[in-house]
């Protein structure tokens, strides 16, 4: 069931909480406690904006166990505006073609389901194309 495992990551999965290095200002997501830029301890939390752009993308037709119901789905590398890259599914695409450079924003969606209707459902971040602003 791995309940505690997913619970521990709730701030990352639901709110993109990473870290900022107090020594060199590097922004880190996922949090890693030792800054890869300067090698010093980095434990100051930092809230990422959730905005970024597509760095690369592909489609998964043969999903791993637990991901069958969404297949085929688009998975991407997203370059966040603060610098780090994250791996995430793209969602809410409609008929819109994805391209490298497409601006995207974070949303919370269902990631996977374990087993039958009684199985645990894991939620987390996905990214969708930035919605056009509706003018009043």
């Amino acid at each position, binding site marked *: 069931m791995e309940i505690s495992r997913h619970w521990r*990551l709730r701030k*990352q999965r639901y709110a993109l909480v990473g870290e900022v290095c107090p020594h060199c200002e590097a922004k880190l997501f*996922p949090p*890693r406690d030792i800054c*890869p830029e300067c090698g010093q301890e980095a434990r100051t939390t930092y809230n990422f904006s959730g905005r970024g752009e597509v*760095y*690369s*993308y*592909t*489609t*998964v*037709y*043969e*999903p*791993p*166990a*637990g*991901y*069958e119901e*969404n297949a085929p*789905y688009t*998975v*991407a*590398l997203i370059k966040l505006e603060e610098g*780090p*890259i*994250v*791996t*995430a*599914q793209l969602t809410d695409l409609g008929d819109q073609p994805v391209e*490298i450079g497409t601006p995207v924003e974070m949303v919370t969606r269902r*990631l*996977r389901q374990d087993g039958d209707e009684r199985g645990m459902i*894991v939620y*987390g971040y996905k990214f969708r194309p930035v919605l056009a602003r509706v003018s009043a």
Partner: protein
Amino acid sequence: MMSEVVIAGVGQTPVEEHWDKSLRELGLMALKAAVMDSGGLRPQALFVGNMFAPQLSRQAHLGALIADFAGLTGIEAATIEAGGASGGAALRAAYLAVASGAVDVAMALGVEKFSDVIGAKVDAALATGGDSDYEAVQGLTPTAQAALLMRRYLYEYEVPRQAFAGFPLIAHANGVNNPNAMFRKAISEEVYRQAGVVSDPLNLFDVAPLADGAAAVLLTRADLLPPGFPHRLVRIAASSMATDTLALHDRPDPLDFRAARLSVERACEKARITPAQVDLFELHDAYSIYAALSLEAAGYAERGQGWKLAQNGAEPAVVSLRGRLPISVLGGFKARGNPGGAAGIYQAVEATLQLRGEAGENQLPNVRRAMIQNLAGPASSAVTHLLEALDG
């Protein structure tokens, strides 16, 4: 002072779907073949390269399993796991055991059994080689990850999509003459062009097939070889391993296979050679994009230019059997097949056969030095060995 380590014996099973053979039976076949090839040397230590047995065969503890099944109870034995580079890492463990003087004879045995489980469970097992919390949870598979790299490569370097055909064409042509290869049929550019998409832009021929197999290498010191040793002697001139971030997204430049580069630099430094002094390069062509990135990481091509080494022009392609730097000489991952944690040992077996002059129809003329490189995922781990024929 480190002792000189020589390859006393090699053994392998065909790479295929071995429905009739278990993990331990495959392991024993390769182990026995290597012992016989050496003239009967008995290993004092066994290092098993394997990644998937705990997940796909519900079997961990392969050291005791295989030592026991081989009638070698009592010896030292353990699994070495480093994802897809488990075979290379097991070879390095065996090398260090002999080089250090800790044992006289060590065996590196790679074994993998995929075919007892099919479909989504295999894909879930494969995904455990990456970052479970931040990659696999998003439904990312190793194949999708290779596709992400290939798309970015095509975009950044403005490379034509068909450019990658060269790698599977060469691998399949070379696999024809390998009796242990999974695919022994050459393919054409047209076949490549029309192949179905696996994970865009990767097509079926950009992805090496996973299959069962076992391979073994027996290492010792030259002075311990049985009298009348019948093979040209091959030594391990250097062994090195390097790591990168586990997750691809944690790298400042995902198209730079840094661990691959570091492991080549370290191996060449130890052997006091440059990569240009290598006569063949068994690289990790689990995906055609990885072949290109490995050639670039090793310094054989500039960034974004690795694919050009697989293009035929007035001369045959540089990395073809008749080129200056042959790769995948007995089919590589693509045609021989990708037996997961055993693949790194297959590379060592195939390179040894070439250096001994025992490679059959695909024997290269005048080869003295081979580089073999085994990667895990997008080079999150990289193991490089230099093998050298000793003349005389």
